[in-house]
């Protein structure tokens, strides 16, 4: 078990290195000059050159990369060339918002998705049809589209929830919750669909397996069979689906946070893209990568807890 955890943690290293190296390489290959971008078209060449030196842009890319890595080792992700703010400071405050959003989404998706999936597996017929249609819509419709429709209906027309903005839980817990409802639903439609589908498939496979037949044939009542054996066995593939949904939701925050104007990493990433702010993009890349590594780690640990073969291996 410990070996699994350590191996996953070690994964973070090549991932962060790989992701950042690619970004640096691209940055060095591509024409375009952040200093020029910052100072604008009217700036004198001297001023641009001075800023380049100040930002270290005149050095070869590998030197820049090494010094960025050196900073990373100390937890320093550089400063935003645009706002002058240290990247870590800028991102830490936003991390909480994104995590609150994504974690709530994943929890809601897991509960609803598993429930719907189990019912679908046990009932079949109409329930399965409805599930098919809902999961088709959930998987196909882009999250930003869903978000826009939800805002139009529930915020603008019905005024049940705020259309945009984020309320910190310190200010008002109710306000915080209601500011998250629509974003969570927009992010979560896909997740519910994916988890429900996976749960149903897994539960159907388990329901048809020999050990369930044997327990059933030897007298175990249906409720105990489902709660004690089917769910537990089916949960193994479902856990990996939940991991996938987590990562997918994290990606989708880029779109959804923008629709709802939430001050998280996703909306910051978009801003940085518009600004061509490479150090912020790199920083967000590092944050996202670490979160993904952590999620995969948790999935592996869950595997170990659920599947004795993994645990004792």
């Amino acid at each position, binding site marked *: 078990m410990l070996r699994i955890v350590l191996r996953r943690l070690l994964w973070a290293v090549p*991932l962060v290195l*790989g*992701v950042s190296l*690619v*970004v640096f390489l*691209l940055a060095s290959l591509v024409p*375009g000059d952040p200093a020029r971008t910052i100072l604008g078209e009217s700036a004198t060449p001297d001023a641009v050159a001075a800023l380049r030196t100040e930002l270290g842009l005149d050095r070869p890319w590998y030197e820049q990369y090494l010094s960025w890595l050196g900073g990373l080792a100390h937890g320093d992700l550089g400063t935003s060339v645009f706002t002058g703010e240290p990247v870590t400071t800028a991102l830490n405050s936003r991390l909480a918002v994104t995590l609150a959003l994504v974690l709530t989404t994943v929890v809601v998706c897991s509960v609803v998705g598993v429930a719907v999936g189990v019912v679908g597996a046990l009932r*079949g017929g109409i329930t*399965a049809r409805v599930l*098919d249609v809902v999961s*088709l*819509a959930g*998987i196909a*419709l*882009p*999250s*930003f*589209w869903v978000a*826009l*429709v939800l*805002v*139009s209906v529930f915020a603008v027309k019905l005024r049940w929830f705020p259309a945009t903005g984020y309320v910190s839980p310190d200010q008002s817990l109710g306000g915080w919750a209601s500011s998250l409802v629509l974003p969570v639903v927009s992010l979560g439609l896909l997740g519910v669909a994916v988890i429900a589908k996976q749960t149903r498939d897994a539960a159907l496979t388990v329901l*048809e397996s*020999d*050990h369930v*037949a*044997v*327990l*059933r*044939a*030897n*007298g*175990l009542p249906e409720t105990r069979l489902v709660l*004690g*054996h089917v769910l*537990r*066995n089916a949960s*193994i593939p479902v856990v990996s689906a939940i991991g996938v949904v987590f*990562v997918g939701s*994290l*990606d989708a925050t*880029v*779109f959804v946070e*923008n*629709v709802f104007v939430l001050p998280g990493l996703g909306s910051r*990433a*978009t801003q940085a*893209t518009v600004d*061509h702010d*490479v150090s912020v*993009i*790199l920083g967000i*890349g590092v944050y*996202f990568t670490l979160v*993904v*590594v952590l999620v995969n780690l948790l999935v592996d640990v869950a595997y170990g807890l*659920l*599947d*004795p*073969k993994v645990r004792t291996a």
Partner: protein
Amino acid sequence: MSATVAATAATAPATAARGSLLRGVLATWRGRTAGAVLLVVVLACLVGAFVTPYDPLAQDLAAARQTPSGAHWLGTDLLGRDVLSRLLQGGASSLVAVLVAVLVRTVVALPLGLAAGHLGGRVDQVITRVVDLVMAVPTIVILLSVLTLFGNDLLIGMAVFGLLGSAGLVRIVRGAALAASQELHVTAGRLMGLSRRQVAVRHVLSRVRGVVIVQTTLFATIALGVQTGLSFLGLGAPPPEPTWGGMVGEAASVVQSYPWLMVPTGGVIAITVLALGVLGDVVRDTTADRSSASGGRSVRRRGRVPAADPGDPDVLLAVRGLEVAFATAAGEVTVVRDVDLDVRAGETVGLVGESGSGKSVVAKAVLGLLPRNGAVVAGSAWWRGTDLTGLRGRGWRGVRGSQIALVAQDPLRALDPTSRIGAQLGELVRVHDRVGRRAARVRVVELLEQVQVIDPAEVARRYPHEISGGMAQRVAIAMALAGRPRLLVADEPTTALDVTVQAEVLDLLRALQAETGMAILLVTHDWGVVADACERVVVLYAGEVVERADAADVFAGPGHPYTRALLDCSPDQPAPDGTLRTVPGTVPPPDAWPTGCHFAARCPRAQDDCTQEGIPMVELAGSRVARCIHPLVPAGQPVGLTLERSR
């Protein structure tokens, strides 16, 4: 076994459909609708973009915010630009972007996946590692940084998106290629004329085609979502250029004052992604394994009338006229019909047949364990006055486990892998004995001792994967004994075990029978097991009982030519040259049963009248009853089924 039957019954249509995927998709109304919608959208955008009714950029503030009219079919936007023209042009760029992503992904993933799955070894290792790594990369962030660097060029962005997305496809293609090349080792001998590699590539490609198409439509859906999403964020073509994402964003900003704009802009995105999604679903259904695709199908009993209960007090289980059918894509297929058999208290009856004969289906039907797409369509299984085929849900309480119990074929798959042996066993004990955990624990140890497990307390603590197959089968038998049943249905209880262990398990079953007085219905294909354990034999061939007799009579000389052939090829009766004999020919699959005798095509005694009409069961000398009109032993007294007991 029932799954095998259902699968055999279902492979024929699946193979036929493989040659015409497109026709298969268009055969469903969902496929036709989705295909038509996509065709209209794609053609309209690709052709329409050049012949737009208006200049998509031409502003006309006087005509701003108009709802649909003859002049502007979909109305105008905030600056009076024609919405239809803008949608057509925006759609063209969206579709090209999606195409780029899909192409890059396929072109990268196919060769890598094929190489990994087919070549294996080092190549596979390296590719798998890289794929694992790429799967963990946060896609959108990479995409954003590419856009940062390439000045919001969405085409490059989507190419990168395709590249990152290829990791998932590599994994799927690799899996399919691996499975396909393993099959090849089996069939390679038969394929002459083509080089191995040619065969391999062709074979693998035909195998992966379905899954690749399904994955590609799904990916196209996601790519379209990302492309419109990015353009919605303003990361695509700059403002005056029309984009689907940008237009829906603009519509959302004025949804209160001018709600109409949301309809065409949001609608075209929704319609396109949903059509793609439906198409993917239909392709999956068309290419999927038919037996799983038949999930929704089921068969019903014909009429409510049960077969008559013979009512013999000595008989525990009386199966009469049992007929079982499975629902497949090709329709209802009967896999077992007109099965009669009796099991008396304390006796062991062997249910014998080759794989595909339907013997396991009979055993499962008795316990109500048929898979979802199967059902008893006629006949009954009487258990001391109760028709088991009529039981549902709670009706089984007091029957399963406490009257009839089951030992399955593969002991390692018969135990729940996630639960300790003591826990699974204890759970059954608590249900049957209605006792608490502590008392259950005592009984668990007793049960394990009863099946001659050496260190019961220790074994109870283990997980199924921590014990040997022989031990697992003992545990499985203990689970069946937990409710103190009167009949044990043992479905090939020794087949999956080592030869040495087989004898031990048989001895154990015999000892338990002597100790408890329970009857055993022993499903097997092994005459050695029958000779060792059974008093009576029921032989099944292609879904029908072909012979019923005392074991002694069968070994002395069976009445049915099939029983003879099966006896001759048992391992105890090797051919003079020492090789194992087999019955020549193959068992006809359930959807291809002939008229008349099912065995006629392989029968050395077959005559013209054998294929004219259904063959009845005929009473023969001794205890034998056989479904043959030219039997190997002379006819005897016509006697009823209930009299045909061991004497």
